[in-house]
């Protein structure tokens, strides 16, 4: 019995991390119609910043969460404002090429600055033992923070002025312009929020996961799968997609073996693409 409970707990922990990986990516894709190839590198950058702050100045990664969030928001804002906005109304392949190129620059800069050595913040926060079901504290904390951040983003989008503007632009760019919304600025803020979520996720990951530049592509791939499963452009979509993928990989990994876990997740993505292209809870028009 406790093995089954453990499988579910493992899946939820992993799923929260996945949700955190995908939420920024999903937002940018849904609102800007930009496939942000930089996303994986943003996550790794956040992880590295937290790692080096901890290594050199013993700054707790949970303090760095704030600093990295601000930093990555500014980076994302400036990139969108200065570069991506110039081509944002072009076909999606143009913006994809631009972010792909930017990703190559950032990726190789990180390789030069930090090397590709896998690094991890070796904090030991212990674990909870609930009747034989083990919950690692650092993953639990990361999961709670991921959920909290995702929740804040949800509230911001629903009830703040800028949030409503973002949603309006997502629904109809031209109508939003007519209503006096400065679309360029909204785009830049959205891209900044996407980068912020990625950086924050990187900080959380650096506690549980070895950070190396090698994983940028892997993270980006996960974000893709999660967005397709959950549905694009909405915060709940990324959350549902992440948790679903985490649970599926955990259950499949247990019953079919580790080799099949990723396969099953990808199969689900294919089936959804054919039968429900909006994702599990996506809205029409965002397939």
């Amino acid at each position: 019995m406790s093995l089954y409970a453990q499988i579910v707990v493992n899946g939820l922990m992993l799923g929260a991390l996945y949700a955190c990986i995908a939420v920024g990516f999903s937002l940018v894709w849904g609102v800007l119609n930009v496939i942000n190839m930089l996303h994986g590198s943003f996550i790794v950058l956040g992880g590295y910043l937290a790692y080096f702050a901890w290594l050199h100045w013993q700054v707790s990664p949970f303090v760095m969460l704030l600093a990295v969030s601000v930093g990555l928001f500014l980076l994302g804002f400036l990139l969108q404002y200065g570069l991506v906005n110039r081509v944002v109304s072009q076909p999606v392949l143009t913006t994809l090429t631009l972010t792909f190129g930017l990703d190559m620059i950032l990726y190789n800069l990180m390789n030069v600055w930090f090397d590709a050595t896998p690094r991890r913040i070796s904090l030991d926060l212990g674990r909870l033992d609930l009747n034989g079901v083990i919950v690692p504290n650092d993953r639990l904390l990361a999961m709670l923070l991921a959920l909290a951040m995702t929740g804040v983003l949800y509230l911001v989008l629903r009830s703040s002025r800028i949030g409503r503007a973002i949603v309006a632009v997502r629904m109809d760019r031209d109508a939003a312009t007519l209503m006096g919304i400065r679309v360029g600025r909204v785009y830049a803020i959205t891209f900044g929020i996407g980068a912020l979520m990625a950086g924050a996720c990187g900080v959380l990951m650096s506690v549980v996961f070895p950070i190396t530049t090698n994983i940028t592509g892997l993270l980006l791939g996960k974000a893709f799968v999660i967005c397709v499963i959950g549905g694009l452009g909405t915060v709940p979509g990324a959350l549902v997609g992440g948790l679903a993928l985490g649970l599926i990989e955990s259950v499949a990994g247990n019953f079919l073996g580790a080799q099949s876990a990723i396969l099953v997740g990808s199969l689900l993505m294919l089936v959804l693409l054919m039968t429900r292209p909006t994702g599990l809870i996506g809205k029409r028009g965002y397939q």
Partner: protein
Amino acid sequence: MTPKLIRTALLSALLMGATALAQAQSTIRIGAPLALTGGLADEGKKQQVAYDMWLKRVNAAGGINVGGTRRKVELITYDYQSDEKRAQQMAEKLITQDKVEFLTAPFGSGHTKVVAGVAERYGIPVMASAASSESVFDQGYKYLFGTLAPNGGLVDSMIRTFTAQMPTVKKIAILGREDVFPRSMAATMKAHAEKAGLKVVHNEYFPVGALDHSASLSRIKASGAEWIYITGYTKDLILVRKQMADLGTTAPIITMITGPAYREFIDALGPLANNVSSATWWHPSSQYKADDVFGSTKAFYDEFVAREKHDPDYVHASAAAALIALQKAIEKAGSTQGAKVRDALASLDAMTFYGPVKFGPNGMNAGRDLPIIQVQSGKVAVLYPQAVKQADLVAVR
């Protein structure tokens, strides 16, 4: 033919002749495709450092003695960005445009195979310092020579040593990465463990892109394994060890191939690295007196530490040894002709700071007593071979 045309033709013939002469007389050119950026950047840089240390020593001594005249060595390197296709292109370019006489192979079994294929076509000897899978060396390549010993050698002495020191250990769980080297190390262990009378209670591979191992580790925990044996690359091993601690999956023996051989592994795990064991191809505490540019293991170690401020690992040592073997073969052949040096390599029997180098019929360095190591109190201790043993196997708590 107009006089002008004749002049041009003469001049270009003269120039070509002069270039050829200069090349023959001056330097020996060795081409090195290196992964300086991309996924293997760390490993590529390790090879680069070791090659450079060798190069400085050789040229300080006036170069390599080729049939009585000393010729300096030039190393031409390209960054192949950890990309297999680029590695192939760079090898072609080095041979056809840069006119190198010898090549070094990139990091890892997969990329080595690609470059060896190119070198074979042109009859250029290629020195592999970081390929240990026999599937690279059983392709019939005549010009490929590798300084690492076959994978099987790593496993055998480990089973003997561990079961002798902990005779109660009967059940082993194996988890390996689905990739050339880790897969081969996992499969070898399964075969050898069964032969040695151990019961394999868990045997599984995980895919290359795995970001989570909790499912496998939960089941290994339930299997009651007394020896947990994991193969993978440093990033995987760090994650697996961390998740083992998270889930309370443990055993008296935890082996991670080849985690403890890398400083990065110990740095990233801190106390969790303690008592993790591994096998490796080389460890600086195995001291050899050598007849090479370094003279002894200690001399290599000291120079390396002074330069890089940390300990060398087997990648550094093997890379330097590969070029030492090449140097010895050139000196023995008294020539830089590919075929002659190739024959000299095949019959080479040299003692280097890295240990004896003697290539078998498939071009791999013959197996010898490979060190078994364990992290003890944050430091690497050698458990085997007997001659350089520093400690006994300690059980993981």
